[in-house]
């Protein structure tokens, strides 16, 4: 059939077939190699990429817990607002840096395009306000007051608004129940920083980029508990983003509620009375400086005497904490922190320190007793006390003759303490101190907890200062160079002081000791320290760590962990001494005591009041008014910087706070129905499993209405109630009675009706 051999192949074809076979083999070898490379060598990498592909994380921020008052009234909670924000990273990807999108957005939101653009630009040295000073990678809120319609427009046309989101967000709200603003105690939130995110990355409570972090006050102290844990749901999605399965999810754990011992009503009274006292102080003429008192700042603390729990804490000047919500505007920020702001962010109850003046005297009294002086001994209260050439005068140069330590407290006699301190100073070696001086007065101050933090559950507490030998030495070491440079033997007063300090500032001089004994000189205390001390005198001597937080209750109310009162020491005095001091402090408000003129009509037999006034001198400034008081239940300390005398400036305010607490009127008649808190709140508010709280309505504190009802009670209908409080000093009565509202109401209608109306008014929800 053919002349070609039976094998059928010319060598050329056979060779080419082998070539084809080798080619095929190498092609498949290539595929196999590449397959190995992708799946075995780089498999893990691709697997990761694949999971990144289909797993979408949906982060549900945990709802921040509420801060409640002792009865469950929310001081800080959340409200849902529609927040429109812009992602800078997205906008910057656009050719025009997102200008077109922002202009369109401005149209929808009814804002000026310029305003919107200014909101998203970053702050730097050359950019004037407004600008964004947060992280550029974080969505920048443009408005948190978008309407549902606006939000819908943005979301429906998401392709027109790349990088813009409109989402309901839980926004912090500081509710100010009954006008109690509690600003410095509550603190505020601001966006988390990159540093914080990195730091908290591997802890059990990492931050989300959108998180807000407590920056001060309770918000910061209990940030971890309040914040809860964000829920992360990981969905497997397909290429169109449709969910095809749920990979893994961590439920969001809503933040726990922090129940405080603050009572919003008492807080309001405290705030009002502090502000009122400061306002009135500004109307008072200061003889020493020749102008009215400035009363530039003040603080008041109401503390449960037996537990150290803070029922009210107010600091003035204050601010609206809602200014921080949704990002503080630069203008507001400047208002709060600027040079001329007087720093309303400071909580002066724990961060304000000043010389205590005479309210300090309980310390040298205890020190004297411990040093061996009899409480009931006779000590000369001369009008002045001279050491060397220096004359230390009694307050207003009054002399009382030989009196007991108790009486010295009552009339606040300085010279008694000058003498004792000087004696002790001499015993300790005077200008050539012994190796181991007894330093009774300083040691006792430390034992009272002064010069140290009280341990209150609020951040950035300051410790005050006990100007003892160690401190003097350290202080001199730190400052002597400056003193020696500035000091001039024959220069001005300040230069002479500096010269003296340069030479012997490290030594405890007689004058130092004497000044210190009445809470002057370099002595510094905080109001919270004094409240703690006076509460301790009331409760028998236990120095409790002041607490604002009372309990942490989970969002569903199931888990309750109470924050138990904790003591950090005992007062260095025997029960007898305590009782004697207690009696002396009661004497301050009765008879010839320094605050007696402020407590006329006080039912001392029913509610024994103890107090100590203080008027501290500050070099170059007007006197600081201090007023430290306690009853069986409470300790109230008020201070007003450049406010005048203790009883003068703070007395009526503190009395009004007590009257509100116990339901007293100016005549000392108690009406328990009106009493806000005759005994401290013991029970905790109940939180339902759904998170709702059974909180009572908080009525606004209306001193005028209270006034009206008081008068209504004391005066029969139709009678003018003038002169019904004969025991009060005329000056005080005038201040109280001058309130126009009260008088107008009184004149227009019979007292009975006023009563009913005011009651009804006060029941109105706030």
């Amino acid at each position, binding site marked *: *059939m*053919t*002349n*070609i051999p*039976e*094998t*059928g*192949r*010319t060598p*050329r*074809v*056979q060779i*080419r*077939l*082998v*070539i*084809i*076979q080798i*080619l*095929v*083999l190498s*092609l*498949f070898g*290539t*595929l*196999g190699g*590449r*397959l*190995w490379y*992708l*799946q*075995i060598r*780089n*498999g*893990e*990498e*691709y*697997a990761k*990429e*694949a*999971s990144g*592909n*289909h797993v979408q994380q949906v982060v549900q921020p945990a709802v921040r817990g509420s801060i409640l008052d002792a009865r469950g009234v929310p001081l800080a909670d959340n409200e849902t607002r529609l927040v429109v924000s812009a992602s800078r990273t997205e906008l910057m990807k656009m050719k025009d840096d997102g200008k077109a999108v922002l202009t369109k957005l401005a149209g929808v939101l009814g804002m000026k395009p310029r305003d919107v653009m200014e909101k998203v630009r970053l702050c730097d040295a050359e950019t004037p306000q407004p600008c964004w000073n947060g992280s550029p990678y974080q969505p920048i809120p443009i408005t948190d007051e978008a309407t549902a319609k606006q939000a819908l427009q943005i979301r429906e046309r998401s392709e027109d608004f790349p990088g813009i989101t409109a989402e309901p967000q839980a926004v912090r709200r500081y509710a100010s129940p009954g006008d109690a603003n509690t600003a410095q105690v509550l603190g505020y939130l601001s966006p988390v920083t990159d540093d914080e995110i990195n730091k908290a990355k591997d802890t059990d409570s990492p931050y989300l980029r959108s998180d807000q972090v407590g920056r001060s006050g309770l918000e910061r102290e209990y940030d971890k508990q309040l914040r809860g844990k964000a829920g992360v749901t990981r969905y*497997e*999605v*397909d*290429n*169109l983003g449709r969910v*095809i*399965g749920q990979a893994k999810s961590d439920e969001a754990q809503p933040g726990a509620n922090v129940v405080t011992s603050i009572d919003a009503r008492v807080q309001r009274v405290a705030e009002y009375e502090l502000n009122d006292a400061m306002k009135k102080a500004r109307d008072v003429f200061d003889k020493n400086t020749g102008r009215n008192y400035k009363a530039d700042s003040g603080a008041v603390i109401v503390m449960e005497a037996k537990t150290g729990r803070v029922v009210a804490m107010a600091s003035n000047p204050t601010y609206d904490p809602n200014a921080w919500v949704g990002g503080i505007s630069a203008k507001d920020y400047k208002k709060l922190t600027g040079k001329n702001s007087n720093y309303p962010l400071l909580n002066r109850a724990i961060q304000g320190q000043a010389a205590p003046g005479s309210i300090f005297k309980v310390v040298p009294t205890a020190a004297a007793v411990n040093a061996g002086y009899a409480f009931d001994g006779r000590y000369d209260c001369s009008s002045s006390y001279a050491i060397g050439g220096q004359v230390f005068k009694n307050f207003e140069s009054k002399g009382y003759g030989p009196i007991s330590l108790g009486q010295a407290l009552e009339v606040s006699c300085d010279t008694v303490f000058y003498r004792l301190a000087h004696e002790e100073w001499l015993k300790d070696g005077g200008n050539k101190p012994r190796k181991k001086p007894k330093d009774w007065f300083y040691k006792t101050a430390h034992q009272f907890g002064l010069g140290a933090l009280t341990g209150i559950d609020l951040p950035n507490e300051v410790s005050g200062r006990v100007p003892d030998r160690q401190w003097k030495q350290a202080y001199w070491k730190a400052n002597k160079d400056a003193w020696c440079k500035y000091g001039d033997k024959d220069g001005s007063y300040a230069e002479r002081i500096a010269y003296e300090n340069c030479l012997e500032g490290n030594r405890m001089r007689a004058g130092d000791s004497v000044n210190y004994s009445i809470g002057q000189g370099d002595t510094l205390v905080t109001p919270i320290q004094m409240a703690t001390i006076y509460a301790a005198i009331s409760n028998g001597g236990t120095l409790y760590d002041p607490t604002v937080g009372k309990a942490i209750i989970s969002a569903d109310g199931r888990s309750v962990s109470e924050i138990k009162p904790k003591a950090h020491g005992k007062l260095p005095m025997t029960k007898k001494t305590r009782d004697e001091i207690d009696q002396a402090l009661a004497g301050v408000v009765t008879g010839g005591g320094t605050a007696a003129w402020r407590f006329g009509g006080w039912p001392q037999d029913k509610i024994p009041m103890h107090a100590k006034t203080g008027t501290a001198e500050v070099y170059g400034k007007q006197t600081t008014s201090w007023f430290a008081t306690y009853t069986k239940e409470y300790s109230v300390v008020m201070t007003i910087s450049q406010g005048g005398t203790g009883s003068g400036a703070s007395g009526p305010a503190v009395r009004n706070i007590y009257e509100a607490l116990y339901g007293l009127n100016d005549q000392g008649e108690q009406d328990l129905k009106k009493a806000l808190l005759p005994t401290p709140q013991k029970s905790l508010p109940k939180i339902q499993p759904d998170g709702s709280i059974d909180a009572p309505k908080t009525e606004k504190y209306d001193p005028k209405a209270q006034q009206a009802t008081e008068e209504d009670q004391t005066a029969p209908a139709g009678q003018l109630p003038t002169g019904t409080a004969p025991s009060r000093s005329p000056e005080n009565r005038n201040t109280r009675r001058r309130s126009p509202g009260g008088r107008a109401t009184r004149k227009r209608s019979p007292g009975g009706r006023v009563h009913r109306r005011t009651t009804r008014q006060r029941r109105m929800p706030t």
Partner: protein
Amino acid sequence: MTGANSFSVSGYGPERAGWSRVFARDSLARRLDWPILLSALALSFIGAALVYSATRNRTELNQGDPYYFLLRHLLNTGIGFALMVGTVWLGHRTLRTAVPILYGISVFLILLVLTPLGATINGAHAWIVLGGGFSLQPSEFVKVTIILGMAMLLAARVDAGDKPYPDHRTVLQSLGLAAVPIVIVLLMPDLGSVMVMVVIVLGVLLASGASNRWVFGLIGTGAMGAIAVWQLGLLDEYQINRFAAFANPDLDPAGVGYNTNQARIAIGSGGLTGTGLFKGSQTTGQFVPEQQTDFVFTVAGEELGFVGAGLILVLLGIVLWRACRIARETTELYGTIVAAGIIAWFAFQSFENIGMTLGIMPVAGLPLPFVSYGGSSMFAVWVAVGLLQSIRVQRPMSA
């Protein structure tokens, strides 16, 4: 030789049982190339599983019936198998006489694509829609008829014993025969098929023993043609983009590079043993487009891993290895050329298809033989298997 076998040759022996007759030494069943047949079947069934996995969730494609593509794939396999049986039964030599008619029909069909009857699917204007959900891709059949046609022309003189190699005239004729459908397919344009056809022509020429000049000339022409096509801007934008994405895989991962990127992620994430059939997240999530057809290999890569994807490579390798043996062992040049054409076709198409999913070849719309879903392709490759079987079965008789 055993007695029984010699009986069967003589034809005078007693009737034997059907079973033993099938497995008698010289029987059809004995002479069939079982490795090819079993590999092709295995590939088709693996393909069925992969197609099912890729389409059971694609409600926009499967008309709500998760088994829509699975059943059709199995039906296609069945029809393909029947076509193979028919091809073996007819024999490639019988078909040789019908080549001009088959060639004519296939060219007519691809011409139809250019008329308004043709339809564009996935950027390739290569389809004739028959209605009822069926459509035809005639370029798949042209691959077979080009092989058969060229083999007929090139082997005629050689098999007749006139010449050791086909002469220039014959080569030119055969090239002309191939050029007509190639140009038509190029006009569709279905570039992937054109590439396969050019490679087929190359394989056919190589196996025919045509002069080296023709072989290198063809390679040179192909290269120049490619440059010309590129330079003259005859390519559509999507084709240029595919090449750009191939050159730089990170280019626009959401757009042009998306397919290859997602395909590589799918395969890479499979690892050694894969995620398990129906458990691949890339597949379930439909991240890879065209996953039941051109990108079916990614399903294997992700869900069956290196083991499963490697098995597909091995099975294809077996088919090609055995085909090479058939090409070498057959005595007629006609059979050799047909086998070589099929090898070139399968090898290149498999390499291109798998290579593009692995990111070593640019994307071209070509199905993976046996595995990809698609009737026309399935029929064509099974006919090719039939031709290979026929060449093998009839080998001894040609002696």
